[in-house]
């Protein structure tokens, strides 16, 4: 038991050390921790506040301000539906709604079985293929509503 609790603590300490406990690098520190655990746990946020000697409220304010951070665990696969302007005019909202119907969650949420987290993003640089859906970094372009189901089935 105790090993499991200790490990993240150590890891976070080593991240803090990598950035020399520099308060100015709070965003980068949080990014590294987010990347490691795919969300920021309460314990992690408290440890950072102590480690950098800044108020908990300040860490919380930064962690909730930026879209890159999540305070809840995320799914095994992250779906990003592009809602950039180019994709929007090509009907991206309909694709998002189709995914929402299929997974029975809303944008921003994670399925109960932690299979998917559904998020939106603004322009992923592939406007020529719009509407675009990105799952775990893989692009699927020229999305149609009837392509949603087979696409999601590829991920378990």
């Amino acid at each position, binding site marked *: 038991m105790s090993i499991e609790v200790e490990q993240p603590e150590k890891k976070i300490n080593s991240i803090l050390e990598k950035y020399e406990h520099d*308060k100015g690098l709070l965003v980068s520190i949080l990014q590294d921790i987010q990347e490691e655990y795919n969300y920021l746990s309460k314990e992690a946020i408290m440890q950072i506040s102590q480690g950098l000697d800044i108020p908990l409220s300040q860490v919380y304010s*930064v962690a909730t301000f930026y879209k890159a951070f999540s305070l809840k665990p995320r799914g095994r696969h992250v779906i990003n539906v592009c809602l950039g302007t180019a994709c929007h005019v*090509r*009907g991206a909202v309909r694709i998002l709604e189709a995914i929402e119907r299929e997974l029975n969650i809303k944008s921003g949420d994670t399925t109960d079985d932690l299979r998917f987290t559904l998020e939106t993003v603004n322009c*992923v640089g*592939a*406007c020529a293929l719009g509407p*675009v859906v990105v799952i775990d970094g893989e692009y699927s372009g020229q999305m149609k509503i009837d392509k949603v189901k087979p696409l999601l089935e590829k991920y378990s």
Partner: protein
Amino acid sequence: MDRLRSPEELEAKRRSIAESRDPEKPCITICDGTGCHAFGSGKVASAFKEEVEKQALESKIDIKVTGCHGFCERGPLIVIKPANIFYQRVAIKDIPEIISKTITKGEVIDRLLYTDNTGNKIIHENEVPFYKKQQRLVFGNNGYIDPNNIDDYLFLGGYSALSKALTSMSSEEIISQVKSSGLRGRGGGGFLTGMKWEFSRNAQGDIKYIICNCDEGDPGAYMDRSLMEGNPHSVLEGMIIGAYAIGCHEAYIYVRNEYPLAVKNAGIAIRQAEEYGFLGKDILGSGFDLAIRINRGGGAFVCGESSALMASLEGRAGEPRAKYVHATEKGLWNKPTVLNNVETLANIPLIIKHGADWFSKIGTRNSTGTKIFSLVGKINNTGLVEVPMGITLREIIYDIGGGIPNGKKFKAVQTGGPSGGCIPESLIDLPVDFDELTKVGSMMGSGGMIIMDEDTCMVDIANYFLSFLEGESCGKCIPCREGIKRMREILTAITEGKGREGDIELLEHLATTLENSSLCALGSSAANPVLTTIRYFRDEYEAHIRDKRCPAGVCKELTTYFINDKKCPGCGLCIKPCPTYAITSDGKGKPVILDQKKCIKCGSCYDVCKLGAIIRN
């Protein structure tokens, strides 16, 4: 590699690179920018390398994987140099034939060529209509450069502007050149770059900063990332020259969180520039020192704004502050700071190299040089285009962009991102520069150019931008936080058929408040998409409000789907895609039946029917 300690050593290095390269040796350049990558160019590139290895042709063919060439629509793209043969939509199965025919025998493969709209096959890259009217001063080198190989940049004359600046120009001369070139910031505001540098140079203090803004928050634009990913050294060179001119020794690149490849390529470029002695201590033996660091943003649009960006760099939430004092005097950590956009900086080496006179002759009087636009949306040739300022919208949309797909009618073009506006068809001959765009109520912004056709609803577009801004407002000041929300609520109500008489006037009233009293430009320009759509498409607003009708068939609550029995042959193609089983067959040969009670207006049937038998209005 030993550091280069003088301009002479740099030139010697350049010569040795040139000597090691055979200009006649065929080189296959493969675009692996984001667009082409999504089309599978990464796999094509690996397969090319394998094939060349398999046939042991390394000594006969070079393979170069580059950043975005611009014509993303036709990806994966390859260009075979030195003949400049342009192949598009290249697949792995084409590779053996490209090598055996084009490379070995010089034969052109017809099916891989681009076909223009009159059916002509085009062989050479520069003859493709998409590229013909462009003037790709900043972006063109992307096609020649492996972004992870500094030698490619040096081979094209890279860092010669830096060497010239360090050895033969004083900082005053550099600033005066940049000033008289007329270069205006490409990040949105259009402020004169030379002036900004001068303010910062004259500001009190030993420590000064220069920051490159690669946050690119405009949700329909991707040119800054493509420059940073494809030709990072051109941006670095501009930054180093700027740093020298203002007397700065520490610089930052602030990159949007969603751009991992830009972070990676900029990082590699910085390391290579350090190794070669273009960064670090005593650059090219001049005694000038500079370090550049990369900072990843956290994913907030407002962080592209100058004071918010600096707050974010300091590790805080990215909230703007009032600008009684300019960043050029008190910016990052309260020190004089210059913030410049990626594209602005990439223009600097050109100005230093060719001179302010040369530069100021390109473009229009008050908007010199070129501008890169991301030409996207309902357009045939989606991609990044670099054009001289002053070119007309018509030339961009029709000559370069190839017009509107599927025979639809052009309706409007949106420029300037969420701070910009929609320009109607009646203004299609407008010359594109900073001032002309502002005159018609839009703006240059960072260069998004989104084309809309008759199927785009202008009220929906206004609603789209305001929803975006509502989510991105930092919430610090009330006019923006509350004003955008209220405007968005009114717009949403209109799109849902709940609009009331007087809504348009109320929107205009709120817009004025936002404009006059917001703390930063996010809020003060937020109403532009609404104001321009009211100005040019008032009838669409009125149709929504009075007739409860969405002429474009976009707003769900105001749209009904039904079957045109005369056109429907009962093929049944639309039955399966319907998620709610609202469509049923009445037997072969008879039109299908749509149950209005079950229809959720998702548009699946409309998308699949090629016979126009599904009507939406």
